[in-house]
């Protein structure tokens, strides 16, 4: 079994559209939406949800005012500036700033602080026309999206092993921080989707460095390649410098948006297009490498 994660650094380069098309190109896979912050893959895959689970997120502390003596110990020890005095001079905790370390709860001499685990995030196992999809929906403003990504991936692995799937394909998040680290950890290969802009190239360089740090092979795909031919050339030569194989170049096509509106992958929307044959070739290269 092979695990491939699609990332980009910069958002909006086409990760999810490419992932959906790769899914349409290759049968026998388990899909995984690793962008739990702003999960979109399900909009194309139209999943039939079979299992819904609650994700136990991080802790958030709160102060029971009737027990609080106002001693200030919690405020002094909080490293996250989450505890402050409100307009009535009562000690209160800003739930968004609380990191969930529970130190205040342990230190409070009046036992006035209690923590609760957030439970506003869900994760799902679904059936789709391309195979099993493990995906999630994070409550707005939640912490721990890296942990939720790890959980989604672990379940995808288990399901892939059980069903004898040949590949796990993960749609990753933008950025280089904890959700991206979680999405690429344990992958056999990473595909970086780049568009011909200096920002995308800059961000791709950062994720290439990140993925190489994990010792994972990196491949690139240049999307919307004809939007700026000069920058496309620049990207090509930069990839050569980094020794990152460029598996294909897909020209800009407004049909990608049309396909999305119809809930289709581009490969289903325009199976005979040049872009679709490039996707198939990328799939073959990823699978054989």
């Amino acid at each position, binding site marked *: 079994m092979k695990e491939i994660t699609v990332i*980009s*650094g*910069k*958002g*909006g*380069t086409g990760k*999810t559209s490419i992932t959906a098309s790769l899914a349409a190109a290759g049968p026998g896979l388990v899909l995984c939406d690793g962008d739990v*912050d*702003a999960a*979109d893959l399900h*909009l194309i895959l139209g999943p039939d949800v079979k299992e819904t689970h609650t994700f136990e997120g991080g*802790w958030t502390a709160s102060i029971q005012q009737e027990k609080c003596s106002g001693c200030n110990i919690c405020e002094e*020890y909080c*490293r*996250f500036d989450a505890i402050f005095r409100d307009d009535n001079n009562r000690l209160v905790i800003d739930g*968004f*700033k609380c*990191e*969930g*370390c*529970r*130190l205040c709860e*342990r*230190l409070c001499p009046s036992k006035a602080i209690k923590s609760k685990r957030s439970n506003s995030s869900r994760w799902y196992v679904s059936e789709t026309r391309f195979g099993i999809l493990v995906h999630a929906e*994070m409550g*707005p*403003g*939640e*912490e721990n*999206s*890296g942990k939720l990504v790890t959980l989604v991936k672990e379940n995808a692995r288990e399901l892939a092993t059980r069903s004898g799937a040949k590949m796990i394909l993960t749609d990753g*998040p*933008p*950025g*280089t*921080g*904890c*959700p*991206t*680290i979680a999405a690429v950890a344990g992958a056999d290969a990473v595909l970086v989707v780049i*568009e*011909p*802009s*200096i*920002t995308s190239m*800059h*961000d791709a360089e*950062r994720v290439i*460095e*990140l993925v190489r*740090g994990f010792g994972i092979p990196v491949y690139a795909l240049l999307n919307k390649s004809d*939007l*700026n031919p*000069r*920058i496309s050339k620049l990207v090509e030569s930069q990839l050569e410098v980094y020794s990152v194989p460029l598996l294909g170049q897909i020209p800009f096509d*407004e049909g990608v*948006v049309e396909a*999305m*509106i119809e*809930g289709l992958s581009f490969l289903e929307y325009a199976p005979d297009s040049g872009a679709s044959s490039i996707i198939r070739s990328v799939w073959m290269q990823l699978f054989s490498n």
Partner: protein
Amino acid sequence: MALKIAIASGKGGTGKTTTAVNLYHHLNRMHGGNVLLVDCDVEEPNGVLFFPDAMEETSSLVTMEIPVIDTSKCTFCRRCVEFCEFNAILVIPPVKFAEVNQSQCHSCGACQVACDHEAIWVKDQTIGNITRYSGITGAGIVEGNLKIGSAMQTMVIRSLKKSLHSNNNDILLFDAPPGTSCPVVETVSDTDFGVLVAEPTPFGLHDLKLMVALLRKLCIPFGVVINKADLGSPEIYEYLGTEGIEILAEIPFSRSFAAIYASGELQSGIPEEIDNGYFLLARKLSELRVTV
């Protein structure tokens, strides 16, 4: 006090940075060059790429305290392990092993409180840096940059925002990271207004709804900029109408503008209807400033 405006989106690539950079130009013209751009997309900071003349003025490291266990003093009682909510400490008494996993540590200080044997000390670990750029028209750019491989993006954003306290600007423009989780909360919290940049596509609408839920939860007023407005479907308008959300601007898709953006040249040659869209948006936000 400066007016703080956050530019956010949920979905990546909708045009946050483009909007931020264009607003920077227009608002600086309207406010005597006293508008600062704060790049909070610390995982991929690239606002400065649109300012070829920008010069690095100062740069400082962002560090966090990482505990180190002195095994000569440690009694392997495992109290620190119990205190650590992030599973960052591994203690195996039979083999006298005690170590902190740096990548899991949130630097909360609980383990030090737990230890009765003064066996835990701390060292500074670099997680990123904060760089200030000048040499461009306007108050300049301050950028947070997460060290590659670090998972502490929220902490870098927090330090970045703290570093602005002594500033004396009219307006602070915060360019937010994509997504809706803790780094976005850190960026938008305590701002006066959110500019949500959305594309009229199914992905764009889905992620916009998540952002709207977040900003409502945080009680931050906001409006929406529809970017690449002619490239998608009308559902977004129905949604915004039903929810009573103000459309601040509509920016059309333009292939030539996309090419200009791609080269990082947002200084000139911007199609008039796009430049005018950003000008009107800036004026609207400027008026907001007077009413606050």
